[in-house]
């Protein structure tokens, strides 16, 4: 995996999540838990997925999200799909 791409994805996710989650006390990093730390509810999640799909021109399968809990895991998934396409 190309480190730069992965880091770019992490950076983009962190930026988007900062504005989406509105939890100012959490500074977002790859190990940040989307569920317990950022309280990403279903609507915010759908918004985020739409933005990711549009930005990277990919399609994220919902079955893969079942194994995602952290920002880093989500970034790795996006990177994986992007590299495969």
């Amino acid at each position, binding site marked *: 995996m190309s480190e730069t791409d992965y880091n770019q994805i992490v950076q983009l996710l962190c930026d988007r999540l900062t504005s989406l989650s509105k939890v100012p006390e959490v500074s977002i990093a790859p190990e940040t838990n989307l569920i317990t730390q950022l309280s990403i*509810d279903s609507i915010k999640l759908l918004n985020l997925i739409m933005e990711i799909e549009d930005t990277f021109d990919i399609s994220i399968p919902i079955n893969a999200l079942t194994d*995602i809990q952290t920002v880093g895991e989500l970034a790795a*998934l996006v990177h994986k799909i992007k590299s*495969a396409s």
Partner: protein
Amino acid sequence: MSSTITKLNAPLTQAFDFQPSSELQITPTLNTLTQKLAGFDTLTSALEYAAKGITGYNFYDARGNLRSVLPYSALRENARVIAKRLFSLNLPRGERVAIIADTSPEFVELFFACRYAGLVPFAMPVPVNLGSHAIYVQQLRGMLESGQATIAVANIDYVGFLKEAAEHVGSLQWIGTPAELSKLPIKDIDFQENHPDETAYLQFTSGSTKASRGVVITERALMCNLQGIVQNGLEIKPTDRSASWLPFYHDMGLVGLVLAPMVTQLSVDYLATRDFAIRPLQWLRIISRNRCTVAFSQPFGLKLCAMRARDSDLKELDLSSWRAAGIGAEMIRPEILRNFAEKFASAGFDANAFLPCYGLAESTLAVTFSKIGTGCKSIQIDSKALIDKKVAVRIQAEGRKQSEFVNCGRPLPGHIVKITNEDGKQLPEMMVGSVLVHGDSVMTGYYNNAEETNKALKPGSWLDTGDIGFLFEGDLYITGRRTDVIIVNGRNIRAQDIEELAEQQPEVRSREASAFGVSDEDGTTTIVLVIECRLAATTERQSLTTRLQQLVYMAFGVNCVVELVPPHTLPRTSSGKLSRFAARQGYIQRTNLNDTQLSAVESGDR
């Protein structure tokens, strides 16, 4: 994790690169066949008729491209071949076939194949939540066990979950994908006619773990309900065409938008639920482009559309063909409908198309329909009288606190709705109580679950819906659900399921967790989970709180508030049972919540 993703992702990546064939044509709206409005004995006899025409099902992808077309004629052919392959497994009639129901032609083919083969299909959900792997598998296992499935089928994306869930499920004899099923040999024996008293399918209601309940729907109940829906509810015409994003594993998606179009030989255009949730306007674009006339949604789906639509989107939409915008599956808040109508008026949407209805899986799907073409009607009720006296008083004077309730219309022919008090005594109009239903659409019971069946079916074959409401001039108004169902973002969540998750934690004893919903002023519902907790250390308390929030999220895709209280805080009934109603009141007092918008829910409580 990466290996899982590689495995899971491969087929979808290919799918994503799929270039729609230019030869693919949608099935037409106008049929070559004389329209019959239901009135068949069984599902297969309805399909035999529909297959003589040229209409059918069309499947769209997330980008609005037509991906596959399944005319009823092809559905019949394919289903009959699959049925003969199922014969090679030599199963007795009535055995159950569990299918993970993504929005695909394969699901529909297998569903009908089961009926041709005399087997009983049931649809299981696809996973939707972040981090939900383990809980989703547990949920599938609950359904496989409760439905005592002999066969379980899922497409390549989900079969891994299914195989995990199938471990230790003793009844299962065959698990695989539709592609693997199509490799079974054909056993060429004649099809047997299905009898109207036979079970057509099981419908699992919302639920998660061990409490999965499969509603038994006979061919007779299904045909009765479908006839009421298409003739009386929708007044279906030969020029109609449907569009749907509703999941095939929900009663409204399956009965209302897969089976009802088939028994009236209409064409339907499908968008997968996941694709709708991310890009809701694709649904409206399909309606606009294909001139669809009948499309249902939960209020939440309409809210998503209104949230996402930009002015530029409105210009390219023409929703003037949409004559029946059915609204059901959760309490209808009129302002959501008004917002939608306002937003899409410039795109030609006619507010008179709104068609509020009421129903539940235990009555196949529909119980009441409002009058088609008249839009959403509501009345204003005095909130105080509703709560204090459980009576619906129409507001005459300004200034009194009021609640607005939507007219859900009258029961389908052959069905009766009555309102009763706690003692089961029938109440007159305008009195608020339990909503009970009688008629041929009512289930025969929950599969293999006499205890739950006895709770729901009262003497004289009256179904206790679990909902609260009143009748006014013969029309039904729903004022609330009992506290055992919490509705968040259009999803029905049983309080018991959340409490069970909590009680699975080592720190939580049984009967020391209480879950309920509280709604704020704009109608947003938050789940509150109150736990009696003996832990003193802050870190331990924090760990429990975080874990519970995570579990609830994984299972139901919603956030919740966890409140830890000292032992003996939660109010109990004389028999030692927790009272969710009282627990909720206690929580509201402790947190000084404003009670302005709590009235609708409260009137539904016992």
